[in-house]
């Protein structure tokens, strides 16, 4: 039956259809090939971390197949989660990151709104300037910043160095410019008539922002939030430079400074700590991925 039906299709049409589907098949094969490469490249390190975290120190240093756990154990997890310091790092990281996200959003959203919608002298140059500040790497800034804080201490007597909350001042220098830039792009994709309609309806600029722009730009705001959180959570250089006491450390620096003692590397716990530390952003991404993509691509097409 099927054979009859197929043979009734004109040969030219069949050929055309076949070649198109062959092209598609090849495109699909290639995309899968590269996707698999990609997955291997990016998932091997976390997999290795997971494997190592389940091993004892003896097994890690033993000459066995490093990709296999012969005597799986949760000791690393128990020790790490049972130690007060790791939980302190975790708490510091969480408090810093969440606070930074809040501070960033409180600054970035209104400034992006002002820069994209309220026409004032120099707003264009200011918007570009905001982005340019993001391009300056923190490696260039941490020494002058350190000096600034020392001078600040000299004049005011307020000690900023080796306090975890100093990170609340430092991180926004990285997150605010980029988030402002993302939000400017997102707000630009909102039709101008929408705020004009709100203005005519009697809304003030603030009401236009809170009642129209923030709800409409929620995907963009979520994207910016995720970005700010990831940057704060993974930031290494600033906490390394500005905090030293165990009680003031955040996770990335805490793991390195407390689990590496001289030339003794506690690999099992380092891997466990890194894995646990990577979990919160991963969970956030998993839940908000769609918003993140929508937020980053909003400017590209008119929706």
């Amino acid at each position, binding site marked *: 039956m099927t054979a009859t039906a197929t043979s009734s299709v004109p040969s030219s049409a069949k050929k055309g259809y076949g070649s198109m589907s062959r092209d598609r098949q090849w495109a699909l094969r290639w995309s899968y090939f590269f996707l698999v490469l990609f997955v291997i490249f990016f998932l091997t390190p976390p997999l290795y971390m997971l494997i190592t975290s389940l091993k004892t120190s003896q097994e890690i240093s033993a000459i066995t197949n490093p990709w296999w756990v012969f005597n799986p154990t949760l000791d690393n997890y128990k020790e790490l989660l049972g130690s007060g310091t790791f939980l302190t790092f975790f708490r510091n990281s969480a408090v810093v990151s969440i606070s930074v996200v809040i501070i960033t959003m409180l600054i970035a959203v209104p400034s992006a709104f002002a820069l994209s919608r309220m026409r004032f002298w120099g707003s264009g140059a200011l918007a570009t300037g905001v982005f340019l500040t993001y391009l300056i790497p923190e490696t260039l800034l941490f020494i002058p910043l350190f000096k600034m804080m020392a001078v600040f201490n000299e004049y005011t007597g307020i000690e900023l160095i080796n306090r975890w909350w100093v990170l609340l001042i430092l991180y926004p220098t990285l997150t605010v410019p980029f988030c402002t830039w993302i939000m400017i792009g997102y707000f630009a994709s909102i039709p101008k008539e929408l705020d004009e309609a*709100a203005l005519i309806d*009697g809304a003030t600029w603030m009401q236009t922002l809170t009642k129209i722009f923030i709800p409409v730009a929620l995907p963009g705001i979520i994207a910016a939030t995720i970005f700010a959180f990831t940057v704060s959570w993974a930031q290494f250089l600033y906490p390394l430079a500005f905090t030293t006491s165990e009680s003031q450390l955040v996770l990335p620096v805490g793991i390195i400074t407390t689990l590496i003692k001289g030339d003794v590397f506690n690999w099992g716990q380092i891997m466990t700590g890194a894995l646990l530390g990577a979990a919160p952003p991963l969970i956030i991404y998993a839940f908000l991925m769609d918003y993140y993509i929508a937020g980053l691509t909003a400017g590209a097409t008119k929706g």
Partner: protein
Amino acid sequence: MAEVHIRKVVKKYDEVLAVRGIDLDIRDHEFVVLVGPSGCGKTTTLRMIAGLEDITDGEIAIGGDVVNDVPPKDRDIAMVFQNYALYPHMSVHENMSFGLRLKKFPKDEINRRVDEAARILDITELLDRKPKQLSGGQRQRVAMGRAIVRNPKVFLFDEPLSNLDAKLRVQMRIEIKKVHQKVRTTTVYVTHDQVEAMTLADRVVVMNHGVIEQVGTPTELYHHPRTRFVAGFIGSPAMNFIPCTIQESGGQLALRVNDQISFPVPPARAQKYSQHKGNGSVLLGLRPEHLTEAKSQPEPGIVPFDANLEVTEPMGMETFVYFPINGDTICGRVNPTAGAKDGAPLKMAADLNNMHLIDAKTGLVL
């Protein structure tokens, strides 16, 4: 509800003059349409009335109060935008009530007004929906509803039908007219579509290059255009302009088009045009419906001539025919039974009782 007065209003963007000192008085309850090609300043004028653009010079008054420095929210106007500008995260009810809620109206009053507007616009069953669940026509109704509930002094429409397909546009045009008949709010409506202007307006304002060319009722503009621009802009297909010279032979004034064609000026108009005798650069303006197939019985003022049709467009109840005169393509409108065929000759007749004579240099209708 209120009158709108525009006095010598100028709008300048950097060095570009978008509106060059226009004067316009819009009466209470009136439906005025600003029409013109893109870039003629019509939308800028509307936005200045709304307060969305600053006025470079001049004065705008709504309801007797000069509003030059009054922010949009305090002008008591409502605007319907081309792309509807509905708040996407709010339901239809919330969209319509947004302005009233900002003004802290009591809940009962808000609901009463929204229900009333929804009833007028026949969108009662859509009140809980979000804008993205609505069709283009429904969105347009909601945008109008948002304007109606506010019960403003003036409605401003900025090309509200441009985003709709042709059929829906005709339908919504009628809806807008019905709504205006019910609520009678002073309305300023901007469009580039002269058909919309003619069908909706009490008075049409034709704009071009930042100035008002003519203000008048649709019939006035159609039958008595004051400039070549208005004559050509109003009416579809557009008026034909045939270059000719005014001559007098044997006491009879005539318009010589070329060696073959010379149209005698009807006696009723002869006196008016005689002062322009010898003017070598005048244009004879004739609408397609005044260029028809020749009748067997001669009528005064209707002059037959021979035409070689290039293209015919049968529309059903009429047929448009296109033929050359002095190298220009001229459009005529004939009866479908006249036997017009592509490439065939046809005896045509020009109805000079409805002619217009235009000075080609000044562009003014003589």
